[in-house]
């Protein structure tokens, strides 16, 4: 009992912000894990991170013209995804360049919006809270929007399912079998944009990227098959998030500042640590995340 009290600061389970943080963290972790497995397999980590940054730009733009920020996130996320798909070449290198160009333009817009915003109001710390966010200062009213967007992303990925997997692993075979590779890729990018945008706004762009890439990359190293990888990734993500929230709550009296350490630091450290631990395994059973996948197996399993 004493040990438990030492581990868990009293009041942890009774506090309202902690309840919301735990629930939101779990939702985001599960969605990110499922979407993240495909993101890592397709090699679109950069797009996943950029969409988070771009969506926050949309949020500040919406704030500037005085409409609900929710629409700003969605409009910018979806618009950027469409742009990337439009100018992006199918090859991996070209895709990252297209992502970079869109991100550069969006960051320029962000600079403008923040400048105009600071001229008309006093939101000096805006850029900072957009980047890092905080899972503890959520308003309960954003939770339904988060759940809806998470469901949207999950349903899209589940509906595309096997087709998406095949076209991620081997676009050529997928195209030969009559899969509209381009359209599938665009639909996935939209789902990614929706899920990443909202999670970035609620828990910060850093944490959103960490939850999207880290657990999925770890799971793809240790798990066999995509479905098991998703389950493992969801487990890792939820565990890291909850443990991070617990540690952040405990750290309130830790040195040096006595204000508590940020959640994002703990969660990121746990996720990266978990990824490094997965290296201890001698060799991955099946290198799904590597370049040469067993596309024929997927094909014949279909």
């Amino acid at each position: 009992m004493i040990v438990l009290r030492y581990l868990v600061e009293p009041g942890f389970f009774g506090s309202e912000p902690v309840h919301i943080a735990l629930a939101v963290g779990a939702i985001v972790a599960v969605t990110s894990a499922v979407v993240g497995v495909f993101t890592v397999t397709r090699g679109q980590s950069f797009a996943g991170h950029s969409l988070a940054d771009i969506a926050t730009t949309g949020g500040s733009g919406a704030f500037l013209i005085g409409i609900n920020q929710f629409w700003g996130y969605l409009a910018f996320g979806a618009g950027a995804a469409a742009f990337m798909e439009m100018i992006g070449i199918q090859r991996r290198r070209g895709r990252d360049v297209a992502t970079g160009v869109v991100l550069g333009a969006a960051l320029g817009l962000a600079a403008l919006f923040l400048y105009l915003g600071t001229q008309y109001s006093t939101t000096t710390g805006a850029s900072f809270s957009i980047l890092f966010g905080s899972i503890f200062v959520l308003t309960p009213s954003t939770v339904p929007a988060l759940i809806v967007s998470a469901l949207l992303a999950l349903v899209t990925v589940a509906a595309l399912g096997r087709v998406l997997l095949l076209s991620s692993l081997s676009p050529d075979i997928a195209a030969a079998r009559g899969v509209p590779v381009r359209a599938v890729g665009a639909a996935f990018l939209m789902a990614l944009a929706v899920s990443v945008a909202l999670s970035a706004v609620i828990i910060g762009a850093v944490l959103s990227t960490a939850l999207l890439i880290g657990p999925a990359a770890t799971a793809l190293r240790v798990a066999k098959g995509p479905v098991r990888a998703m389950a493992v990734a969801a487990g890792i993500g939820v565990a890291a998030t909850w443990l991070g929230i617990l540690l952040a709550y405990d750290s309130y009296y830790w040195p040096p500042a006595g204000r508590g350490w940020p959640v994002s630091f703990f969660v990121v450290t746990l996720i990266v640590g978990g990824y490094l631990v997965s290296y201890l395994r001698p060799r991955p059973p099946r290198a799904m995340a590597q370049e040469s996948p067993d596309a024929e197996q997927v094909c014949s399993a279909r």
Partner: protein
Amino acid sequence: MFGPLMLNTWIAATAVAVIAGVTGFFAVLRGSTFAAHAIPNGAFAGAAGASLLGLNPFVGLAVFSVAGALGIAGLSRRARSDVATALTFVMMLGVGALFVSWSSQYAQEAYSLLFGEVFGVSAEEVLPIGILGLVSVAAIVVMFRPLMLSSALPEVAEARGVSARRMELGFLLVMALATSMTVPVVGALLMFSLMIGPAAAARSLTARPGLAMALSVVIALVTVWAGLALSYRSDWPLGFFVGMIGAAFFLAGRAYAAVARSARRAGKTFPQTARSLRYLQLLAFPRREQGPGEKDFRLLPGVSRWRGAYSSATGATIRRTRPAGCSTGWPSTSAGTWSSRTWTRFSSAMTSPR
């Protein structure tokens, strides 16, 4: 606009544009745009840590950007590079969040690191930027040939004894060096857009590597000068103009490439501009004749190695300057040196789109 107060700004911006044009060209060619985003942005954590310890922020920036380069290169040994970059990046930002939460008055400084304070450059800041710019450009020039081969054709480079891993590490370190000095002046966001947009535009304009790099520098210069002038007049942030102009150049480059491709398909000798550019390039860099000690200079008959490597990486068509059967230009025409199998492997590596 060109007064003594603005002079430092113009000099610093010009130096930054040259650095960004040169390093960005390789960042785009190698497809390491994510690293170009991650290193400058993640390095701000170092500045936060340095200000916490009471050190010069340059020290923190340098330490963290080098650490980031080492982390990306180290992790990508066993994982795909985008995953390695993402994890290194979030780790750096997580540590940055921790540092910021320890010090209380950092938010304003963080804003200036992200968006830069190019209009407040002092003379003391210009000198280190210039020196660092020279060092990083010199490093790229020294590494140019192996770096080019390893960026365009990693397998061929490995076969020729150029370690891809070492090249990756070297390039990332140059990028770290370039960003640690420029970030406090122009900001991480501007540095990133200046590296990607002009270089991507230059790559669509021409298939010749040397010319593409020169064009990348020129476009970066035009972008940053126009951005400075517009920003000075309108009082809007420089990052906005640079981001927009860079993206516009990229779109224009892609449009030009598309028009040129369709014209070539229709059989017309379209690109008059390309020809005049090539003429200018020939004036500036006259083609060397092959000397006796340079047997390796040509890999395919009539196609210089760099051009072959570059065009197969970018998908541009290889134009032979000599007929294929011509004996001159082939390394040691004694037939025993190259078996037919080597020949097939090399030629397919050279011509197949990647």
